[in-house]
């Protein structure tokens, strides 16, 4: 049995082990990788950055804990960016296992804004982020398509009270805020089919600017909506999150993870090449043997 035959019969667990070793070793090594910002992420940042203080952004945290790795960094980077610019945020969580996780993330981000922090060379004074004033967390309701349509009529129809049980009418932030007409844009951070509903039933029906943050698995299939203008921009996976963190001058877990991504991808490409070489060499040998 020569090298290529052994390669074709290699136990896949060796590949997993090698990948784990490379990922952990890269994670433990301190270095930076350059992150190039793509236009589809740049437009999202520019859109949010150009909003005036006091304007309202709706951030839909439409993912479960299993998509947390890719989408949490986006939530953190975007919410921090919005609050730093003194924008107000309406949060929803239309994914069934998401509300508790979203609530925890909102509290974490609020806490981090209590301290003075420098972003892109500009010092921002820490301030208290107050529920009902700076943000309103609407929580979860089942049947996301109907919820999206109902919010276009009045936020109070699907959400008479916020996640904490406070009636929307008693929240200072929600005074005069009826539906999407009072919202500057909707940011959907999603790990599933809810994005389709935001495109068809939300943007398509009510015409608000829709910004998407998607898991890597989903990203490629939503590019046609970018070309058609139905979507303003797309942040794709951990790379999209890292690009946003870079533009916001707020390096976090996504930028930290990109150096591991680089080497993990190199290993996978190496294995793909080795697998293909092994396959074609074995096939050629098999054909030669058949001719004899």
């Amino acid at each position: 049995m020569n090298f290529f035959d052994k390669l074709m019969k290699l136990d896949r667990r060796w590949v997993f082990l090698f990948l784990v070793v490379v990922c952990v070793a890269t994670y433990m090594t301190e270095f930076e990788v350059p992150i190039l910002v793509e236009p589809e992420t740049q437009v999202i940042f520019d859109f949010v950055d150009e909003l005036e203080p006091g304007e309202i952004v709706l951030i839909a945290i439409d993912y479960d804990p299993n998509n947390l790795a890719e989408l949490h960094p986006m939530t953190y980077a975007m919410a921090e960016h919005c609050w730093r610019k003194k924008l107000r945020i309406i949060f929803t969580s239309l994914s069934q296992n998401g509300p508790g996780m979203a609530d925890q993330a909102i509290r974490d981000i609020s806490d981090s804004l209590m301290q003075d922090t420098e972003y892109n060379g500009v010092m921002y004074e820490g301030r208290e982020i107050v529920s009902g004033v700076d943000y309103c967390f609407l929580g979860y309701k089942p049947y996301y398509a109907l919820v999206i349509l109902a919010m276009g009529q009045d936020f109070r129809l699907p959400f008479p009270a916020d996640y904490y049980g406070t009636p929307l009418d008693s929240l200072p932030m929600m005074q005069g805020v009826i539906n999407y007409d009072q919202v500057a844009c909707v940011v959907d951070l999603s790990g599933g089919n809810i994005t389709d509903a935001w495109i068809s039933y939300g943007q398509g029906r009510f015409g608000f600017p829709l910004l998407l943050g998607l898991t890597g698995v989903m990203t490629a299939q939503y590019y046609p909506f970018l070309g058609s203008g139905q979507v303003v921009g797309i942040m794709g996976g951990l790379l999209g999150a890292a690009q946003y963190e870079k533009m916001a001058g707020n390096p976090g877990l996504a930028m930290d993870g990109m150096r591991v991504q680089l080497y993990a991808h190199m290993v996978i490409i190496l294995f793909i090449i080795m697998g293909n070489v092994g396959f074609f060499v074995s096939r050629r040998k098999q054909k030669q043997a058949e001719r004899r």
Partner: protein
Amino acid sequence: MDFTTFCWTTFAAFVTLATFSFLYKDNPFYKFAEHLVVGVSAGYFVIILWHQGLVTNLFQRLADGDAYFLWLNSDRWWYVIPALLGVMMWTRFSKQYSWVSRWPMGLYIGIATGIAIPLEMSNRVNKQLYAMMVQVDWSNFFGHGGFNLLDVNSGLSQLIVFTGAVSALVYFFFSKAHTGIFGGVAKFGIWILMIGFGASFGFTVMARISLFIQRVQFIDQSWIHNAMDTTNENYFWGFQAVFWIMILLIVGYIVKELMQFFGSKGRAESAGQ
């Protein structure tokens, strides 16, 4: 971090490692983690549905009514109708009355279809067709402001989108043999499809690695760091005790598996001799 939170963090680390252990082989730790996730998710969903759905959208809206009057004396008495429809769904558990559940199901499907068809047609078919059939921007063929192949509005991108979409559709047209020019277009279509699948595969690899990276970050920053963080005001020996018990469990399992592996290998060799 207090000790209780640290114990839960240790449990999260254990469940993480138990899940990854499936990459080696199926085992009781993985089974435990798998069943735990399914059970917790289902339980959590039911509670969320109750508190966020039924309580706020039904019970609180009918709160001014009276149970003796079946809440029909409430100011918003019409909320009794969807409640009744919901109750009718439960008749599925009875063989004799399961037909009753078809009424709410029929109503739901009818409304959902009525809402979905025009919006889906408009937003997922028509708008995509309009976007595909735009006039090629020859003045910015290689991208606005010079040479930019990432510009989705460049003439080249528009041309690729149009020819790609048409040729991919041709590939799926099986009423005519894929020969000659038609076959060539179909072949171009399959190449376009493969490029699309390749892009999806690349993103998927990134997504899967991201999941692993996040768990490594969690184990390092939330578990190991807190186990060793003596500057923590709540820190005491219990943190390290829990940590090392966990490490012993992991090492013990690895040693057991290695002994089993080499034992079976030795037996196979001796059987071969």
